[in-house]
């Protein structure tokens, strides 16, 4: 650890330090940057992950008719639109008095959601993470991408593309379209699945399960090959939060909130998510657009927590599909009595969830309820609704107020990346302490920072991607703005 600074959030004398920026981060969704302040001896004094996310989107929703919202919110993000579609739908279910959906509607929504989990996890592992994991964090930059993986490991890359495609097909069929789907509506869904559509997916599902098992094996093998790295790289002890089903089983679509402490002991359980504001507060810091959520009961300093696959796999009591449950048990045996807090363990957990998603899709496709036309319910109107879902990256909260003219009067969103804000910052600082402190900074070392962030699969949500909008730049500047060195990739 650096002798000059302990927590690395704020340097004592920033004016005397050089600034290194990774701006924007690569292989994460949207725009974010890391700034590092170093002295003349390259000792680290300050490390911050800054993220711009959802600025103005809540205001964009206010004033719109409530029934438009599940479609509009998909435009938040080009990567996880389905998660927003479903979280908003769940909130609006409450508004239209349909707290409990028909069996067909709930199962079709679950199918859509697990399709989203599968395709999102496949994209992250095979396309974004595997180049670092298979070639090394400071390997040849020109090879450290999906084309490099496809050349060296063609079957792995091929499975990644086909898994992703299958998940998109599940979404297309359940949401009605590949993008901007309208399948989920307040109170249910607007389209039953046909037998032909079901059979189209059934034809491929067993191959998908097989490839998902291979992916778990690959993630596990990488972990076992280098436990010294995988168990400690960027590891930060934190509380963990996720939904679990009423029986404690993993449930990514619905459930109650459960929170464990750093040692894995349950602190809070069975919290109805409609009461989230009683338990979660958000702190604002002047140097980041993104808020820092924490548990009210513990305060901002001690109450921050982690969400996402690594939390969910360790927070539930079981996974209710057989192959994924076997993998969960092996994961838990590996971690021992204490939870694994290492960011690289996200990849193993994420692949266990992908296998669970594939098995769940298979089970739902065999359920005759998905062919029913009993799709929508209505009841007594409410003026507010909260919808929570476990999105691929973690717990996603949508909260709306709706007036008597059917217009949205209030919107509050807490997305998974926001939940993980503090823990990602702490992970980056840990990597900086261990790998960068006192060393000449190179692209490979800066990629260590990105590897830690990337493990969380943050969704920085900026789907504007017009030509010329996404340069990748690393700049070394003095604090008064003088450019010392830079590297740009257009």
């Amino acid at each position, binding site marked *: 650890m650096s002798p000059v600074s302990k927590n690395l959030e704020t340097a004592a004398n920033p004016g005397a330090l050089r600034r290194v920026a990774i701006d924007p981060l*690569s*292989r*994460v*969704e949207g725009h974010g940057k890391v700034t590092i302040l170093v002295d003349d001896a390259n000792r680290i004094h300050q490390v911050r992950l800054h993220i711009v996310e959802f*600025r*103005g*989107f809540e205001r*964009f929703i206010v004033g719109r008719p409530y029934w438009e919202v599940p479609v*509009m919110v998909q*435009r938040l*993000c*080009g*990567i996880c*639109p389905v998660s927003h579609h479903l979280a908003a739908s769940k909130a609006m279910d409450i508004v239209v008095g349909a707290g409990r959906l028909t069996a067909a509607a709930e199962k079709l929504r679950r199918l859509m959601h697990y399709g989203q989990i599968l*395709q999102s996890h496949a*994209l992250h592992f*095979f*396309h*974004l993470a595997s*180049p670092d994991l298979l070639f090394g964090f400071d390997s040849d930059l*020109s090879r*450290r*991408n*999906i*084309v490099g993986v*496809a*050349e060296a490991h*063609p079957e792995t*890359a*091929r499975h*990644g*593309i*086909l898994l*992703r*495609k*299958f998940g*998109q*097909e599940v979404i297309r069929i359940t949401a009605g379209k*590949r*993008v*901007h789907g309208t399948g989920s509506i307040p109170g249910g869904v607007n389209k039953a699945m046909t037998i032909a559509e079901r059979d189209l997916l059934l*034809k*491929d599902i067993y191959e998908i399960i097989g490839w998902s098992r291979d992916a778990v094996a690959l993630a596990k093998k990488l972990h076992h090959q280098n436990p010294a790295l995988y168990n400690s790289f960027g590891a930060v002890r934190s509380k963990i939060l996720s939904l679990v089903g009423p029986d404690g089983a993993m449930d990514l679509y619905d459930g109650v909130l459960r929170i464990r402490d750093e040692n894995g002991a349950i602190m809070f359980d069975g919290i109805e998510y409609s009461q989230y504001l009683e338990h979660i507060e958000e702190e604002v810091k002047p140097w980041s657009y993104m808020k820092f959520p924490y548990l009210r009961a513990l305060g901002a300093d001690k109450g921050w927590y982690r969400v996402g696959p690594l939390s969910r796999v360790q927070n539930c009591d079981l996974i209710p599909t057989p192959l994924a449950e076997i993998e969960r048990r092996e994961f838990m045996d590996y971690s021992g009595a204490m939870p694994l807090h290492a960011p690289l363990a996200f990849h193993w957990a994420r692949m266990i969830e992908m296998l669970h998603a594939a098995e769940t899709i298979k089970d739902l496709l065999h359920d005759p309820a998905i062919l029913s036309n009993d799709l929508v319910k209505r009841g007594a109107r409410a003026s507010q609704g909260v919808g929570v879902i476990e999105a691929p990256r973690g717990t996603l909260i949508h909260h709306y107020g709706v007036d008597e003219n059917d217009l949205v009067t209030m919107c509050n969103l807490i997305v998974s990346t926001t939940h993980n804000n503090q823990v990602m910052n702490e992970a980056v600082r840990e990597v900086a302490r261990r790998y960068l402190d006192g060393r000449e900074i190179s692209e490979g070392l800066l990629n260590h920072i990105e590897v830690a962030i990337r493990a969380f699969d943050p969704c920085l949500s900026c*789907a*504007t*991607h*017009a*030509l*010329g*909008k*996404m340069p*990748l730049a690393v700049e070394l500047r003095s604090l008064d703005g003088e450019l010392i060195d830079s590297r740009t*990739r*257009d």
Partner: protein
Amino acid sequence: MRCTVKPATLVLAYGNPSRGDDALAPLLLEALARAPIGDEVELLTDFQLQIEHVLDLEGRQRIVFVDAALRGAEPFCFTQITAEPDATLSTHALSPGALLAVFRTHFGFTAPPCHLLAIRGYAFELGDGLSAGAQRNLDAARTALLHWLTPVTNTQVARA
């Protein structure tokens, strides 16, 4: 995942309809859908290009990518493109050239002839509508693309 026949021409437009002129490509696709382009042209839209889109490119005779452009010629720029493994390979949003590079490694052969129609936009803020300049550019791009699509015959190509 195993469809057998695809239209010979693919128009793949990408952009976020809620971010001002980033809606140019999806809007062009909507306009094409209302035009008499025939069964031999398939229209696809998405927020951004991703690895699985290589499966949409396979089995075509020609492909047109449509995007909004922050810089470049007005009203649009129409260029032939080839595989180019650029820096977007490591992001959630691939460039068309990067997608063609993934195609080449995935299938082991070069993608069909591809063009990029880059329509000049000016304002990309969340919640904005299309700017007046972008609307003019969209009209010009629609006319030009419809003209380019006209010679296509009803050929259907079989997919392996």
